[in-house]
C-alpha cells in the first residue's frame, strides 16, 4: 500500500510553524544603508518594501544618512535574507547592513557562530576584534544568551555571517 506524503508534510509544516511562533526575537534590529535614495518620495517606496519583510514591525528612514532602521516585531526575527532583496525591489542598491541579533554562541570548527534561539540556524561570526573574541569564547557554551552587534553579510551560498563589533551577555 502506498501512503500519500501530503498528510505527513502538512503535519510537519504545522509543527514547524508552531515552533517558529514560539521562537524568541533573534535579529531584533537591522540598519540598512540604501544607496540611491535621495528624495522623500523615493524613500517611501523603499519604506513600504522593507515594512513587508517578515518579522519587521517598524521602519524608520533617515534621509540624511540614507539609511532605514528596522525593528523586529515582539517575538519575531527579521528575515535578513529578504532585506537586501526588498531594497533592490524598491529600485535601490543595498549598502552596509548592521544588525543586533540575540541567541547563543556555539563553536564551529575554529570559529564561533551565533545560533538563533529556537532554531538550528547560525550566523558565523568573523573578524571579531579583541576583546570581543575573548567574550565570544567565554560565552560559547551553547546556553548563555548573548546580544551581538555587527555588519551582516550573506555569501552566494546563502551562508549568513556577522562581522561582530560587540558581544555582550544577556542576563537570564
Amino acid at each position, binding site marked *: 500500500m502506498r501512503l500519500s506524503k501530503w498528510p505527513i508534510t502538512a503535519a510537519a509544516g504545522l509543527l514547524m510553524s508552531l515552533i517558529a511562533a514560539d521562537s524568541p526575537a533573534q535579529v531584533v534590529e537591522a540598519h540598512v*544603508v540604501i*544607496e*540611491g*535614495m*535621495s*528624495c*522623500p*518620495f*523615493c*524613500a*517611501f*517606496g*523603499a*519604506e*513600504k*518594501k522593507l515594512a513587508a519583510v517578515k518579522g519587521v514591525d517598524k521602519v*524608520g*528612514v*533617515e*534621509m*540624511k*544618512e*540614507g539609511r532605514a532602521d528596522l525593528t523586529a516585531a515582539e517575538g519575531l526575527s527579521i528575515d535578513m535574507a529578504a532585506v537586501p532583496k526588498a531594497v*533592490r*525591489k*524598491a*529600485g*535601490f*542598491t543595498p*549598502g552596509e547592513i548592521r544588525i543586533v541579533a540575540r541567541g547563543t554562541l556555539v563553536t564551529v570548527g575554529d570559529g564561533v557562530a551565533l545560533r538563533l534561539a529556537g532554531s538550528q540556524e547560525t550566523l558565523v561570526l568573523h573578524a571579531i576584534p579583541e576583546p570581543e573574541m575573548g567574550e565570544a569564547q567565554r560565552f560559547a557554551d551553547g546556553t548563555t544568551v548573548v546580544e551581538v552587534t555587527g555588519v551582516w553579510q550573506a555569501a552566494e551560498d546563502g551562508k549568513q555571517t556577522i562581522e561582530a563589533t560587540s558581544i555582550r551577555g544577556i542576563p537570564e
Partner: protein
Amino acid sequence: MRRALIAVLLLAGLALPQLAKAGAITFSTALPVAEGQGVLRLQLIGVRAGDDPTPLDRELRVNALGVVVAYGVTSKWTLFAAVPVRDLRLDLDTPVGRVARSASGLGDLRLLARYTVLQRDEPGKTLRLAPFVGFEAPTGADDRGDDLGLLPLPVQPGSGSWDAVAGISLTRQTLGWEADASVAYTLAGSGDWFDLGDEARLDLSYQHRIAPRKLGSGVPAFLYAVLESNLVWRGRTVIGGIENPASGGTTWFLSPGLQYVTRRLVIEGVVQIPVVQNLGPGALEMNWVARLGVRIYL
C-alpha cells in the same frame, strides 16, 4: 479656417499628461517605481493660445485633467498609462458675429513601458538612464460637431490615430538637487480625416532644494525651485492628402515652478512660457501653459 487652425493642435497636445514620479514636472524622468507599487498623478492643465494674425481673431482655451498611473512591474520595468479629460473652446469672429465652438471628453490613451538600463547608486545620490517605448491609442473622439458642422482640430478631444512613442530619460538626483534630460519622438499615424505631423521634443529640468536648508533627522519634506526647458518640434498636418503650411513648427518654453515633496505626496506647479515660436504663417501663438498637480504613492 480649419487648416489655419491645425497648428494649434500642437499646442493643445501639450495638455497631454506627462509621466509620473518625483522629478521633472513637464516630462518623464528615469526615477524608479518600486516593484508591485504604483504612483497616481493628477494634473490640472490650462493652455491659452491667441495672437491670431488673421481677421478671425481666434482664441483657444484648453482646460484638462491629466491622469497618469505608473506601476512598477519590477525594479527596472515600469508601465505608464496616461489619459487626459479635456475641455476645449475656440472663440472666433465669423460673418454672423463672434462664436464659441467647444467640446469636452476623454482624450487619447498613452501607454508606455520604461526600462532602466543604467543605474549608478551611491549614498544620497543616483544616476539613471531609462529608454521608454509605447503608443497612443485613439480613445478620444475626433468627429465632434456643433451647429456649424464638424469642429476644427483644436477642439477635437482626440487625434483619431494610433501613434508610436519612443524616447530616453536621464536623471541625476542628489539630496540637494536633481537634473533631468529627456528626448522623445512621436510617430503619428493616420487619422480618420486628418494626419497629425510627427513630434520631437527635448526636455531639460533642474530642481534645487530650497527648504530645508540643512537636513535634520527622519524624512523631512523637500521644497524645490524648478526650472525646465521644453523644445518641441511638430511636423505639418495633412488633410485630404494636402499638407497644411500653417501647421507644425517649433516652440521653446522656459518653465519656472515649485515642487513640494513629502513621503507620500508631491504637490507641484509650473508655468510654461513660450520664449521662441517658429510656427507656420497663420498659426495661433501660444500664450502660456500652466500645470498644477499632485502625485500620490499608492
